[in-house]
């Protein structure tokens, strides 16, 4: 239990460093949903760094898989429809709401952006209510 807290904090500090590096070097916020959506959307000259960023995420995943495969344990629901609907909601919702856990939850709150503060409070509390309901009706 205590180890989980330490891991969470260390992971968080690393994430904070990565996000700050992105700001220092490229002048951008590290919002994953925005970076991916931009890659589907924007003019060509703004594309390449987005694909490189996603590639970095993926290579990081391969590194983790090699050295600590149990970081991917405790997977998603085995019901494929649940996975599909969750993915659709996350994709549509994060773009409509201009951000996700990284863009609003980390970058936005650090800037004290009122939009990000409200978005973060909302998606966490809605997540709490959702898990409560989905557990009661037997989806989770």
């Amino acid at each position, binding site marked *: 239990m205590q180890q989980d807290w330490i891991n969470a904090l260390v*992971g968080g500090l690393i994430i904070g460093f990565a996000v700050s590096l992105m700001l220092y070097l490229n002048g951008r916020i590290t919002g994953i*949903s925005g970076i991916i959506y931009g890659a589907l959307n924007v003019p060509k000259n703004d594309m390449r760094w987005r694909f490189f960023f996603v590639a970095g995420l993926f290579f990081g*995943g391969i590194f983790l898989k090699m050295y600590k495969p149990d970081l991917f344990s405790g997977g998603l629901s085995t019901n494929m429809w649940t996975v599909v609907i969750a993915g659709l909601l996350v994709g549509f919702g994060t773009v409509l*709401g201009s951000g996700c856990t990284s863009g609003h939850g980390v970058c936005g709150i650090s800037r004290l952006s009122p939009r990000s503060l*409200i978005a973060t409070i*909302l998606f966490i509390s809605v997540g709490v209510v959702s898990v409560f309901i989905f557990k009661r009706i037997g989806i989770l």
Partner: protein
Amino acid sequence: MKNSVSALVVGFIFSVGLGISGMTQPQKVFGFLDIFGNWDPSLIFVMIGAIIVHFIAFRIIKKNQKPLFSNHWHVPTKNEITPALIIGSTLFGIGWGLGGYCPGPAIVSLASSEIRPIIFVISMICGMYLFKILDSKYKYKR
């Protein structure tokens, strides 16, 4: 090109941070959101850790005239609370509670060579495309 290399490096570091923190394990996310059940609050420290670092770093970095590899800052300045922000964040919260993945950990988990993260990411991109199609028609104020 410098922009792309730095994005690659940042992506890698970010990904390792996500993995260490526990965010790539949906069961931990369910535990974090399950306040009324068997609550596991540990993931709150991910946000606390990241915000402590970035809260300070943001203020130092923004004193520079411009970023190292760009001519200007690309930081959002909008302040208006729009219906899109509210509805979008609500839909995201439902999806997060249902799937246990937010966008970053979903991409990182593609490397786990499991089928479910792949299905999740494909669906997530379809959701974004759906927004793109609707947005080109209705021009949502985000």
